[in-house]
């Protein structure tokens, strides 16, 4: 069981991701903005971070950069979530230190597989 944090300002996506990952046996915390995500990252031990790129205030990219810049969280796996129309963000995401990305609309099954693959890679 992994501890996963999902940050997305869209309640539908947040609930869907949380539901699927809990169903897959993970412990999930959901927040709706970048600031709250960063606070959680600093306060709680986590195994994986799922970040929506476009969030009001602090974006997913900003959170990712902050996570990578702090030695204690630098190795935390980060998966970015972005809309199909904003695929240009993917490159910026990798530059910010993200490990993988998921494009909306996505299949919950694919999301679960990506999370599992990422956690397996980290375990090795």
């Amino acid at each position, binding site marked *: 069981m992994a501890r996963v944090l999902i940050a997305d300002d869209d309640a539908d996506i947040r609930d*869907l991701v949380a539901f699927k990952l809990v169903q897959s046996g993970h412990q999930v915390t959901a927040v709706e903005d970048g600031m709250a995500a960063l606070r959680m990252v600093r306060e709680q031990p986590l195994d994986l971070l799922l970040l929506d790129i476009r969030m009001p205030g602090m974006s997913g990219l900003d959170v990712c950069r902050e996570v990578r810049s702090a030695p204690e969280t630098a190795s935390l796996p980060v998966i970015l979530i972005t809309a199909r129309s904003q695929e240009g963000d993917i490159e910026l995401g990798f530059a910010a230190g993200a490990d993988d990305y998921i494009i909306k609309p*996505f299949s919950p099954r694919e999301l679960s597989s990506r999370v599992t693959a990422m956690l397996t890679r980290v375990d090795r």
Partner: protein
Amino acid sequence: MINTALVTWALLCLLVFVLMLSLLTVAVRGARMYRRRRRERIAAPVRGLLLELLCAAEDEQDELLGRLARIDKRTWAALDPTVAAMLGKVSGRARSALVRLYELRGAADEAVARLGSRSAARRGRAAHVLGQLSHRPAALAVCRLLDDRDRDVRLAAARALGRTGDPVAVPHLLRSLRGARTVPPNVVTAALTSLGRDAWPAVAAGLRDPEPLVRAVAIEALGMTGAISRAAEVARALREDADIEVRIRAARALGRLGMPDGLPPLLAAIRPGRPVAQRIVAAGALGSLGAVAATGPLTELLGDRNPHVAGAAARALLRLGPAGEAALREAADGRPGPAAAQARAALAEAAVGGARHDVLVEVAL
């Protein structure tokens, strides 16, 4: 002399008006929030069921679909906005399940009936739902909304038609570009692009339209969808079309299509004496085409009198790969002058830009 009583009275009236307006705004917001919360409260017991359906394995879906199809009208009305929103957020089996749920609830028939509603919001939402469901039988009915008196309804109809996947919509979409009630070209282009390859013959027919905007949009859509079987027609548009905007779009489309048919008209389009905008886009398209045969003509352009054309040629040479890069190095090391400067600038840009270089060039064009 100013009448003090009159000014006081006017100020009081203004104050009362501002107060009433503020109260009205607060009341409207409050009512909206109340309605939203009420809807969330009513939908809460079945929201989990919906999430379960979206995450369910195939063999578990039927039972969940049955339960959701049986929920009462009031609860469905509260859950419906979430279901509609989810259609655009999930893909694969989850999306198919939502479409089946709508079919079971008879939502497609209901939406078709609402296309004729007196409320613009209802007409637009009905078109949106039919598009999300990719409901082909309703394509012609949705086409009629392209001429709707409400702009938002026209936009919703165009987007919905792109999602229905029915090429019957193409002539209607192209026609919506002209007249008093139009749809913006970018929305029509996106809809035509979504229709994919089945729509190519009808889109290519748009190249013969008397209206330049229609021809330009048709070409753009063919380029975006990779309509390689239509490359010859696009090449003809670049050679023969009277409108500069159409020729520019044709040049860009030929670059995207990447077919050999594109090389001769593109080489002709970069010649001196042609419009500068056309020469810039055609030079960029030659880079996208990746034809080594374009190395010589593009190298000649490095010394062009117009620096934008010369810059576009330098960046296009980079995109040609080793042959183009070698030509740039030779020009950079050659006789000092504008051509050498353009070559050095492009090489330096590539050195610092790395992988982003191509993206920047594409955006610039």
